[in-house]
């Protein structure tokens, strides 16, 4: 552990634009030893990615139009040579990709679409290892096998668009490992992937790294991942390191106000229901001004008087190998209970929405002039649901499971192939255009991407007020303005923002605008399609609390769609799990999370890392084999059987029925109980 692979001494990166400078990284120092796994955690804009790029002098490729240039200061010593030294340029180039390799966030766009996949990998091998074409090809195929890419020989010559997201990321890992690097940097490498795939990739990465004694540096915003895999954790905020130390110390004794805020704002699978998420108020700092003093001071809930006056906050030793730049050593780490009693939420059994036998198929057409259908994408098959008034139904599933199609069918944006959707008795699928539009007042949608769902050309006030104009809900200007002001206040937005345009607001504020717009026509049913997954953790908590408050005050009913189980568990009353267009298990939140029956639900739950090293140490993940099959060629019978560890002959034959094994707990798997019994016997929770 003594020999350091990479030693970075107060690295500083600034983007000198024509009229202003962005201070992306402000003097950070860290080092990494062979075989060690280091986690770098922070919210978007804290400079965690830029710092890694800077060590390899990879201009973080700002869009080509930006004429800014990256200026690096400080040293990044590798094998005794400072990579940042301009004179070492040639040496740096030989290190890049060879000795230090990186994996990026978007696997699909990181591969050259017009070049064979195998070629892109062997290109690096031939360059760094000076191997001939045939040896390079052999080595590439061997690497592809190592990262478990099925039938590697043939897939060598196929193109990136023929691979799924998960497969692409495996290719990137193969490419990175191709030259036996000393250091591998994974920059948000699993953020874009589904939870189960993310678990597979990280597990494989850890085994490979342990086996080859390569140092691994994981950059992520997900505390769970860092808790499970990292030995040492650096917490970054506004371009600087605010705290670092051993993983267990950071989680048990977080000693910086920001770290505490982070930990308290993240919902955990194992915390009790009435726990109140404690968001960090305000919004991320503006990097265009040179930071002085403590950058977190504006949002810090536990700041001391002298915090204002101190010029700078060096990292001081708080514990053995545990440093923090926060001067307040009596930080309150307790979690606060939510003041409202959730159990008290009694649900009247009046059904608001009843979906029965809903399926949807998108035909794949081929042919020149007269298109004939050659195949079908089975987005939804035979989905039935019941949502009571005031209830929050959580819908969980990975990409391609049909949750978005379900949401759009309810809103009438997509007309289902068969089945009916009864909303207070009326069947939405049978309404004509005019009636569907009127029904739009009743049912509204909250979008995932807060920025893309607001019209950039309109002012905030205009966006929120548009439903009022469309449905002529207010007569006269004054009443309109009053109602808009009311909506602003309702979602916690400052009314003075009325004339600003969307790009001037932060992520959280934009999502509040989306919610206000949805509430403008006083709907009683809200479909939330992944409302928080695009937000930073701290802001996520603000929105979740807002949604809960609105539900209590306005008696709203939510259909909450997400792929992050911990968020769904926190907010929903009942949860349904979907896989490839079918509901595989449904039940109230307690039974489903604690006593899951269906193998897929269990795999989903175990794939979600819990931000607590002790828990993660002991937990092993129920690995799920292979990749999600394509939606146009569904496997026969239970569509999960090819990947299910407990699959039996029967599974492939008949499509399992959703049966009620306990009051309110449905499951669509014949062997479910037996599998659970076997599993509990082997001692894992």
């Amino acid at each position, binding site marked *: 552990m003594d020999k350091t692979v990479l030693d970075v001494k107060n690295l500083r990166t600034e983007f000198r634009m024509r009229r202003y400078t962005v201070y992306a990284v402000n003097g950070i120092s860290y080092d990494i030893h062979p075989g060690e796994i280091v986690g770098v955690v922070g919210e978007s804009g804290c400079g965690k990615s830029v710092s890694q790029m800077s060590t390899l002098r990879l201009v973080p490729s700002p869009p080509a139009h930006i004429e800014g240039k990256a200026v690096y200061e400080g040293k990044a010593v590798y094998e005794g040579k400072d990579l940042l030294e301009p004179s070492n340029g040639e040496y740096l180039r030989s290190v890049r990709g060879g000795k230090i390799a990186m994996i*990026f966030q978007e696997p699909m766009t990181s591969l050259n679409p017009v070049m064979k996949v195998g070629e892109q990998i062997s290109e690096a091998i031939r360059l760094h290892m000076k191997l001939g074409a045939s040896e390079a090809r052999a080595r590439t195929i061997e690497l592809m096998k190592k990262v478990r890419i099925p039938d590697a020989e043939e897939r060598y010559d196929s193109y990136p668009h023929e691979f799924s997201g998960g497969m692409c990321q495996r290719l990137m890992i193969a490419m990175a490992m191709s030259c036996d690097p000393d250091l591998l940097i994974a920059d948000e490498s699993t953020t874009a992937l589904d939870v189960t795939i993310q678990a597979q990739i990280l597990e494989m990465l850890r085994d490979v790294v342990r086996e080859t004694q390569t140092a691994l540096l994981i950059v992520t915003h997900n505390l769970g991942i860092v808790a499970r895999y990292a030995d040492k954790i650096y917490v970054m905020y506004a371009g600087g390191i605010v705290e670092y130390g051993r993983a267990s110390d950071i989680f048990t004794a977080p000693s910086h106000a920001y770290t505490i805020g982070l930990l308290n704002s993240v919902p955990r699978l194992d915390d009790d229901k009435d726990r109140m998420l404690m968001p960090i108020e305000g919004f991320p700092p503006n990097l265009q001004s040179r930071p002085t003093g403590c950058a977190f001071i504006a949002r810090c809930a536990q700041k001391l008087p002298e915090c204002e006056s101190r010029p700078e906050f060096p990292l001081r030793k708080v514990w053995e190998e545990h440093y923090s730049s926060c001067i307040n050593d009596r930080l309150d780490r307790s979690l606060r209970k939510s003041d409202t009693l959730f159990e008290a939420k009694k649900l009247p059994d009046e059904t608001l929405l009843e979906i029965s036998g809903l399926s949807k198929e998108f035909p794949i057409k081929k042919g020149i002039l007269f298109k004939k259908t050659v195949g079908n994408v089975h987005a939804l098959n035979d989905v039935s649901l019941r949502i009571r008034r005031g209830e929050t139904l959580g819908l969980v599933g990975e990409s391609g499971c049909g949750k978005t199609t379900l949401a759009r069918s309810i809103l009438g944006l997509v007309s289902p192939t068969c089945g009916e959707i009864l909303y207070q008795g009326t069947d939405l699928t049978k309404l004509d255009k005019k009636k569907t539009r009127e029904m739009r007042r009743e049912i509204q949608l909250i979008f995932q991407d807060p920025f893309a769902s607001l019209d950039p050309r309109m002012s905030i006030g205009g966006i929120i007020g548009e439903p009022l104009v469309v449905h002529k809900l207010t007569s006269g200007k004054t009443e309109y303005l009053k109602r808009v002001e009311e909506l602003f206040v309702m979602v916690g937005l400052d009314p003075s923002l009325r004339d600003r345009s969307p790009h001037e607001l932060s992520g959280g504020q934009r999502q509040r605008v989306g919610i206000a717009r949805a509430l403008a026509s006083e709907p009683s049913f809200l479909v939330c399609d992944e409302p928080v997954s695009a937000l930073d953790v701290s802001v996520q908590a603000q929105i979740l609390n807002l949604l809960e408050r609105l539900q209590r005050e306005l008696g709203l009913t939510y259909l909450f769609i997400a792929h992050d189980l911990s968020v769904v568990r926190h907010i929903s009353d009942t949860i349904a799990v979907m896989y490839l267009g079918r509901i595989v298990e449904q039940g109230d939140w307690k039974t489903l999370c604690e006593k899951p029956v269906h193998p897929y639900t269990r795999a989903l739950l175990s794939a979600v890392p819990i931000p607590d090293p002790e828990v993660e140490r002991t937990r092993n993940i129920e690995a799920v084999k292979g990749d999600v099959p394509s939606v146009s060629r569904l496997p026969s019978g239970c569509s999960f059987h090819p990947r299910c560890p407990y699959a039996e002959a029967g599974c492939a034959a008949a499509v399992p029925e959703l049966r009620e094994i306990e009051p309110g707990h449905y499951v669509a798997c014949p062997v479910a109980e037996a599998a659970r019994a076997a599993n509990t016997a082997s001692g894992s929770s």
Partner: protein
Amino acid sequence: MTQYIVKKLFQALLVLLIVTFISYLIMELIPGDAVDFLLGLEATPEKAAALRASLNLDKPFVVRYFIWLGGLFRGDMGTSIFYNDSVANILVKKLLVTFRMGFAALIISTAVGISLGVVSAVNRGGFWDNLISFFANIGISIPAFWLGILFIILFAVKMKVLPVQGYTEPSADFWMHTRQMVMPVIVTAVGALSSMVRQTRSAVLETISQDYVRTAREKGLRERVILMKHVLRNALIPILTLLGMQVRVLFGGVVIVENIFAVPGMGRLLVNSVFNRDITVVQGCILIMGVVVIIANLLVDISYGFVDPRIREIKDVA
């Protein structure tokens, strides 16, 4: 892949049909017809009527169009009212002239255009970039005929280096042919060259900012290798699209340049025929121009298939 080609072929034929209909419609709207012109004052009503009947000019517009179209399918493009000779054999000579000039201009504008575009994109904001972009901007702003006359005064009159006009078959006297072709080709090429530079530059800039270029750089490849293997291959797609459009721009340029430099090409014939109301010749010229432009676009579409694997197996998912 073949399905993709066949689909594009069908589309091209349909568009070609519409092209001929549009040109016939425009010629129909133009008042006055060749007959009054031809017979002059001797036009006794019976003579005019007889000539009109023989040329089917008395039939309604739509019928005449379909007669012409029928003829086209049988390979006969009709006879010119003016030169009372079959349109095909009038056009064949003129076509070669225009194609030689147009093709030379296309080669120059593409080769020089793309290389300059890449150079200026690669050192973005640098000296070369500003210089090339400035001249490219001037290139697209100069009216072709004005430049033509400037060239004539400069090279032919003052410096007496190049012949002023005329056209000799390359077979007859190749050296004279090239000397005569220098000015017209350059004048035609200037406009096309400049727009090619500008478009290539933005296409390359767009590709440089993609993620896979960053991955290539992260792999430690030399800048030149990244440019050749990764950037250019991907920038080729938008550049190809532009190439399809260039053919149309060149035809426009040729029409003007042929008149200045007295090159007996199709452009000049077309303009004369429009003023002479020689409908069949106009149709012939526009048909050929349309065919060439559509074939150029078809070739571009097909070449997409080779350059970009994603387009190869198009599946239309509704």
